[in-house]
């Protein structure tokens, strides 16, 4: 299949999926007690907003979504807002528009996720190579044991332990907040250990495979320096499949940020999604959920596209589809 046809088909599918996600979310939220424009009357009493503010907000959302209009019309109003990037006021955060909150929160989550992937790669590649070069040694087994730990424990639990060690015991790093660079360290570290474990496992098995290739033996036989052969011949080739794992990991990391942001009280996208859900702030929840879903779908699409570039065989098999490599054990958290 040629690239443009494939891309346009996938884009259509992505749009359809987004619409489906929005319909499901909206329908579910509709069935929650209270009406879409009315819910803040129920909840805002508890969320410490003054009486006049509540009345004003109520009037605002009533004028936006209308009183006594059918649900599908409210849905269309909301989706129109999504399309024009004007989703109206948030209930929970009085005076802030949903699109402003998303606009300010997304860069924070993206920074966290990208830094975490980078750090994960920096940890995983040396660890994986190290384990592969000493296959079945004690060092290999203990590296792989650490990998299992990193894989099994969700990022927020790792974060909890890191907080106890570096904030409570040693007092080196702050345990919450988002204003200085050192606020980045613990969250990024917590987020990166899980992906690092997954990546290290890939690097190790991929490296073991390439080390058995004839060209590596040939390079060794020609008397190339050990280090050069390992880095130039073996490592380089064994890193190619890694590209396919990083993408899904990035998507998984985006969900991982939800919990880490909540724990460290970082005002990222996940933090707002969680507070919106807890306070039933429907516009904000709809907005963040849709935006999250969009990002994850775009990342997945980008991954599928890179498969085609990396492995021409996938292109030959009816086009840019998903390959076996996709099966990563990405635990969402």
């Amino acid at each position, binding site marked *: 299949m040629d690239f443009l046809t494939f891309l346009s088909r996938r884009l259509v599918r992505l749009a359809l*999926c987004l619409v*489906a996600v929005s319909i499901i979310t909206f329908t579910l939220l509709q069935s929650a007690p209270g009406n879409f424009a009315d819910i803040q009357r129920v909840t805002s009493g508890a969320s410490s907003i003054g009486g006049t503010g509540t009345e004003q907000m109520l009037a605002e959302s009533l004028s936006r979504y209308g009183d006594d209009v059918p649900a599908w019309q409210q849905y269309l109003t909301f989706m129109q807002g999504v399309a024009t990037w004007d989703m109206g006021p948030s209930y929970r955060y009085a005076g802030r528009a949903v699109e402003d909150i998303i606009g300010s929160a997304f860069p924070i989550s993206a920074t966290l996720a990208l830094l975490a992937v980078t750090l994960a790669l920096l940890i995983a590649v040396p660890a994986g190579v190290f384990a592969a070069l000493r296959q079945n040694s004690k060092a290999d087994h203990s590296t792989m044991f650490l990998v299992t730990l990193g894989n099994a424990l969700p990022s927020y639990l790792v974060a909890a332990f890191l907080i106890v060690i570096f*904030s409570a015991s040693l007092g080196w790093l702050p345990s919450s907040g988002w204003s200085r660079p050192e606020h980045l360290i613990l969250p990024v570290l917590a987020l990166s250990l899980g992906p690092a474990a997954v990546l290290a496992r890939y690097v190790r098995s991929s490296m073991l495979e390439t080390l058995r290739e004839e060209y590596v033996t040939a390079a060794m036989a020609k008397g190339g320096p050990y280090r050069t052969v390992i880095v130039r011949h073996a490592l380089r080739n064994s890193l190619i499949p890694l590209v396919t794992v990083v993408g899904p990991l990035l998507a998984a990391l985006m969900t991982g940020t939800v*919990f880490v942001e909540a724990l460290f009280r970082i005002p990222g996208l996940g933090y707002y999604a969680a507070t919106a859900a807890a306070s039933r702030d429907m516009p904000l929840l709809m907005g963040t959920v849709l935006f999250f879903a969009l990002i994850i779908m775009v990342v997945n699409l980008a991954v599928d596209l890179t498969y085609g570039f990396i492995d021409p065989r996938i292109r030959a098999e009816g086009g840019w589809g998903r390959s076996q490599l996709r099966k990563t054990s990405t635990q969402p958290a």
Partner: protein
Amino acid sequence: MGTIAATEDVDTTGVTPAERPVSGTGQHEAPPRARGPWARAWDRFKRNRLALISLIFCALLVLVAAAAPLIAPYHFGATDYANQLVGVGSEGHVLGTDQLGRDILSRTIYGLRTALIVAFGAELLALLAALVIGLTAGYRGGRVEQGLMAFTDVMYAFPSYLFAIVMVAVLGRSIIALIIAIGIAGWVTQARLVRAQVLTIKQREYVEAGRAMGASGPTIAIRYILPNAIGPLLVTTSFAIPAAIAAEAGLGLLGLGVQPPTPSWGAMISEGTRFLLAAPHMLLAPAAVFALSLLAFTWVGDGVRDAFDPRGEQR
């Protein structure tokens, strides 16, 4: 037809035990028995020391959770204002207390109970949904399959954690709501797996034989196909359990778990970060038990996978 099947049954069961001593040759060897796939899987599982220990540990966790009211020294909501935020090893409170003087050990035990009820409940729900949808889609084919699989595709695109968050926002913060939220968020992968299994098994001769003998659709799906699809399903389910435990704690961390004062590990950890300097045990105790449980359940999952994976025999 029914009578023939019945006599055959009696025949085989009558003969095999009688033949066993004859066919067994060496006395030092265990008498060769008919080894079914389950028995072989169990043998392989037993050989994995870590998985076996983990299984025992998990069984212990289940027992403790079931007997929580008997084991926990206090009720999870019982406050002791004379002993607020006391540390580990205090008199009457082995793991200390929280800001309201509630016993951390008791709350951790009850947190385990919450986690396991939600995780097992959610997985049961997910498994049932996956079986019904996957079996129907795989066996019926045609329009039904297309419709059901389009639905699963949409749900697959919905990030499961977001879905769980939305569900809790809708259903409220109760155990049932959590089970539904996590269960529904988790059935999609399972349903796809069931369908894929059904599609391959459907082609086998014994299914065809069953059909030729006039068995109805549901009978074939449940009696012929399901037992043969259950191995891979067991593997994914055993990995889904720790994931569901983590999901329950994650929702608790976000303030979307069970209604307080009922303890959830996630909520306890979140609360613990507020009293980090005064009482690190508030965070550490539930986090440590949580981590151990997750590891144990994951290692059981590893063992189950190796036991059912044919490649495992080469190792």
